[in-house]
């Protein structure tokens, strides 16, 4: 009895220490965002005792177009993620519950669409977008981000759906439920943790995507990745300001992540009742 208590306390400590270690670089950047530039790169480093300042945030907000970029990011990341889920859920359902001998092939093919590094296909896409007026539009970026994240979503949802026992779905179908009802009423609650985590993953990937979002936009559709990039590597000391800009870009995702968390928790308790 004694041993179990000790080792579980030790395990808990280890878990927290490791989790903090993983988050440490981000936490360090968070601290840096409140320091002066000189303080941010000082050695020996200062941890909690220094002149806390909001100057970096003030400067970044004054020099960048935060609200405009935030709006673009929400539309681009949100739009493409919703589109991805709308396409991926049916596809994953089909592959998980009505598999054919082609299923594995299709899965691998989907993944293979990501094999060509984006930078190699920049010029053809650029030319196409120029001719079709898609440059510097939200739609243009949404299309590419959707295509980029769709294989991931399909894979993850496929894995999730596979863990849902098919008998329950069949039972619902036997009871006369239509496909839509089956998906909404029976599948979704059971696969909720998977659906939420897949959405969150896709959303964050789209939020931080820094190739297409930077190369295909200039001003109108420039999202937060462009906002942050403007503070990256100028001539001079910049790490405190870059950290502040990054925090401003991360904050909205954190909020959405926290909301997704709560769905995950709800899904968990549901699962326990099973």
């Amino acid at each position, binding site marked *: 009895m004694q041993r179990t208590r000790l080792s579980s306390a030790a395990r808990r400590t280890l878990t927290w220490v490791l989790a903090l270690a*993983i988050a440490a670089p981000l936490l360090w950047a968070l601290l840096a965002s409140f320091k002066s530039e000189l303080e941010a790169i000082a050695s020996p480093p200062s941890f909690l005792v220094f002149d806390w300042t909001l100057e970096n945030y003030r400067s970044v907000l004054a020099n960048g177009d935060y609200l405009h970029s935030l709006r673009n990011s929400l539309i681009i990341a949100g739009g493409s993620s919703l589109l991805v889920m709308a396409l991926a859920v049916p596809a994953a359902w089909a592959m998980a519950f009505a598999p054919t001998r082609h299923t594995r092939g299709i899965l691998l093919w989907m993944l293979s669409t990501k094999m060509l590094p984006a930078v190699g296909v920049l010029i053809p896409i650029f030319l196409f977008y120029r001719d079709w007026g898609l440059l510097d539009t939200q739609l243009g970026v949404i299309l590419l981000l959707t295509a980029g994240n769709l294989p991931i979503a399909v894979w*993850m949802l496929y894995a999730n759906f596979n863990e849902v026992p098919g008998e329950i779905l069949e039972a619902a179908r036997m009871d006369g439920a239509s496909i839509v009802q089956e998906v909404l009423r029976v599948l979704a609650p059971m696969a909720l943790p998977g659906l939420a985590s897949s959405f969150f993953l896709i959303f964050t990937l789209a939020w931080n995507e820094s190739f297409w979002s930077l190369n295909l936009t200039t001003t109108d559709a420039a999202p937060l990745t462009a906002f942050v990039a403007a503070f990256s590597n100028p001539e001079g000391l910049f790490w405190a300001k870059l950290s502040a800009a990054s925090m401003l870009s991360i904050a909205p995702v954190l909020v959405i992540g926290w909301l997704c968390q709560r769905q995950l928790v709800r899904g968990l308790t549901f699962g326990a009742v099973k």
Partner: protein
Amino acid sequence: MSTSTISTGNGRTYLRLQARILMAPAILLLVVCAILPLLPTIYYSLIDYRLLASTSHDFVGATNYARLITDPGFLPAIGNTLLLNGLVLTISVLVGLGMAMLIDRVIVGRGLLRLLVIAPFFVMPPVAALIWKNLLMQPVAGLFAWVSSVFGAGAVDWFSALPLVSISLIVAWQWVPFACLVLLTSLQSFDREQREAAELDGASSWAIFRYLTLPHLARPIAIVVMIETIFLLSLFAEIYVTTGGGRTTNNLAFLIYSQVMLQYDIGVASAAGVVAVIFANILALVMVRLVGRSLEA
């Protein structure tokens, strides 16, 4: 495990047709957005297309490919691609697995723990590379240098001595959240009663892990491996930001980037893209052979 076959003949056909319809939009989008651009790429790889030179787009056949493959930096780039892939996969999966199993056992504060572990995922990749390079790994003034001085050791000159390892660390750090999230989600559907029964029967933690947990996690691990591999093949931003490239750190994607954005030679860049696709296909075939069994039920 997913028993979805319906015994009645009609039901089966109906289901299959519906399945096709359900998959169609996704497949269509991918064909348009991901396959169509491949065609001009193949075309460009066969012509002389340099943005800065006033060239006519003459057909040059395999010249671009020849230039690419005979470049002394080509083979090292392939090697680095594999090394980078291997290192990042190993680190991120091991750490992600460890964290997932640890977090799974904790009840209080699990939400916060999850948020902490997912933290690296929030940062833009180029910014993450800059933070690691200048605030953490800087041998003179970085946090790591200070930590090692506290222990009386000298600072590690990360990018001079261990460039590929350093880059792998940075990238693995960014992918730990993904691995952890996927594995944690899967662990949540793991049958606890079975594990408790085994524990009561006196099975060691290692045996439980090896014969109960690991098989359950086989599929998610396979998925993490496949997805990360595909993503890592396109990696180049971190390499550019930290070392500016070089024989020891260039990978295939960086070569492509270098051709497109620095030499503006679209012909050779497209050839490199085609080679990257071929290489990725070979790699995927190998990986599927290794982990593919776990992918299906």
